């Protein structure tokens, strides 16, 4: 039995880990996952060239409507998006909402800007320029990050707005998490957004961000889980937390979805897929933290497990 999937690159490390562990435990099952990007994942899923898709941007209602027999989206894991920076001598950066929205709008231009200095009393902030680094390629990470910025800043919502490849008003652009990380590492005064897991393995400094309640929260498994736990999952299991209203929640966290057909042509395949999904939602969740992903809160996992039955 061979299952083929394609889609988002953000959950690729944990998916490949899950699929490998599952294949080893079940000799007759082989699962291939290609991280071709969320957009391509949704496209392949609609065209039915795969057994399942994956997307960080979920699917739009009109896209779901184009899937014959219906689609079941399942949030399998979640992650934080962090701001990493390279300011010599600065290790503990706190950014207010005003500051980091301003930085990505190109309005906060110097590291010693009052908007940054206010939240970092006593820190030695240089007067050098802020070199903003954003993603050059279309990506789900950018989508979630701009969604958050649009939620906290009316100006950002108007332009550039929420998009997977927006017209950033400022900065240089690098390809992929690795490109942004490399640019930030080699450019003094740089700041960029990357995935939490990537920042963790690369030991990049991460800024504490001000959340909706006005607290400065460092990205961590606990603070990210607090954010996604605040999501109220509707029946279609598509929910965003653009700005979690929880006092100890890290402000930028998101689910990522596996896209499954409600009606599979081969019932045996569907059974294997269900079995795999249940593994991911139970034992699989224990792998999350080491790879920098957020284990699903129990309430969410229970709800998703129930939805797995819709995959027939």
């Amino acid at each position, binding site marked *: 039995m061979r299952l083929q999937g394609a889609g988002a690159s953000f959950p690729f490390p944990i998916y490949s880990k899950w699929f490998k562990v599952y294949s080893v435990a079940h000799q007759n099952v082989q699962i291939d996952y290609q991280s*071709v*990007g*969320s*957009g*391509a994942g*949704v*496209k392949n899923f609609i065209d039915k060239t795969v057994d399942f898709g994956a997307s960080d941007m979920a699917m739009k209602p009109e896209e779901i409507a184009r899937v014959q027999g219906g689609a079941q989206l399942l949030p399998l894991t979640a992650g934080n998006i962090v701001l990493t920076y390279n300011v010599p001598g600065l290790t503990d950066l706190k950014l207010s909402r005003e500051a980091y929205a301003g930085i990505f709008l190109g309005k906060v231009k110097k590291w010693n800007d009052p908007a940054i200095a206010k939240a970092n009393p006593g820190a030695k902030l240089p007067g050098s*320029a802020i*070199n903003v*680094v954003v993603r*050059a*390629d*279309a*990506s*789900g990470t950018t989508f979630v990050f701009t969604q958050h910025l649009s939620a906290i800043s009316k100006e950002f919502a108007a*332009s*550039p*707005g*929420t*998009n*997977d*490849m*927006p*017209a*950033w008003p400022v*900065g*240089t*652009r*690098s*390809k992929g998490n690795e*490109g942004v990380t*490399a*640019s930030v590492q*080699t*450019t003094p*005064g*740089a700041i960029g957004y990357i995935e939490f897991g990537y920042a963790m393995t690369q030991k990049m400094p991460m800024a504490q961000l001000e959340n909706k309640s006005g607290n400065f929260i460092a990205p961590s498994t606990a603070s990210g889980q607090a954010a996604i736990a605040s999501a109220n999952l509707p029946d279609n299991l598509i929910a965003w937390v653009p700005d979690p209203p929880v006092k100890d929640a890290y402000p930028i966290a998101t689910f990522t979805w596996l896209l499954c057909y409600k009606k599979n042509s081969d019932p045996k395949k569907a059974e294997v897929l269900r079995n795999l999904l249940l593994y991911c939602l139970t034992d699989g969740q224990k792998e999350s933290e080491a790879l920098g992903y957020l284990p699903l809160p129990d309430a969410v996992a229970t709800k998703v497990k129930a939805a797995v039955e819709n995959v027939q």
Partner: protein
Amino acid sequence: MPADNQISRPPSRIQTATDTAFRALCQGFAWLALLIAVFIVLKIIIAALPAVRQYGLGFLTGRLWDPHKKVYSILPEIWGTLYSSVLALILGTAFGVAAAVFLAEGFVADYVFALLKIFKLQFHPFWGKLPKQMDNLLRNLIELLAAIPSVVYGLWGLFVVIPLVRPACHWLHAKMGWVPLFGTDLSGPGMLPAVIVLSIMSLPTITAIGRGALVGVPSRLRMAAYGLGATRWETILAVTIPTASPGIFGGVVLAFGRALGETMALAMLVGNANVISASLFSPANTLASLLANAFPEASPKDVGVLMYAATALLAITLLVNAAGAYILERTSSDPEGSKA
């Protein structure tokens, strides 16, 4: 030769058959190559047609690429593609032709020969071969540059070139910011690092073809120049290089085509920001890197727009190559062309 010679006899039937088959095969593959090229171009143009109809020529002259507002235009990318390629070519040609002269004139061999002479080893059966081998080594080293993968160039640019040029860029911007070339500060990736790496990437093409052209200059021309009392320096500048110039130019055109289409290294180094600026330190964007960055997650609707951009890139490359071929033909019809 007499007809009844034992050696010469009419070809056997098998030989004729193989001959015809081989010719057909070659012809087939030649046509296939052409067909594939036409097929690719047609496919891209057909995929681009809806976007061409929707956005028209404004696509080529606007400055904004904003998927959120559904506004697409590629003037910054066209500018960046041409600007980076032209600058890289100026740099690459200067170094490439110099290296070609150095190789073609066998300067290394001369040095090594002179060195061996000190030890009186110049005609030694083993050491005597050294000058020629050093020449080959140097040539292969430069041609090896062509074998380095683009992504490695990109990484090298990111981790070596950018930190290396940063202090100089800061200084130039601070002291001579009024010169448009230094109008902005280098933040990291930008035009200059991209141009430096691109020029190194185009170096092997220019050098290899340039060397071929220089070596092909008939030696009697050089001898004649020496005979007239010209120094080696004067001979190189006034006789060898002008005679070989069509060949050198051909190499430059090839390198230009490569520079226009270079993707990976540029996507990593150019900064990918939709900015039109004469400044060497400003981030910019190129068509190829726009395509590389936007394609993986493109929705079916965006694909048309990207295909339009691809068509524009194709057209630019085609124009450059056609212009190059035309100029080459014009100049090489000189009686003293480097066709040797």
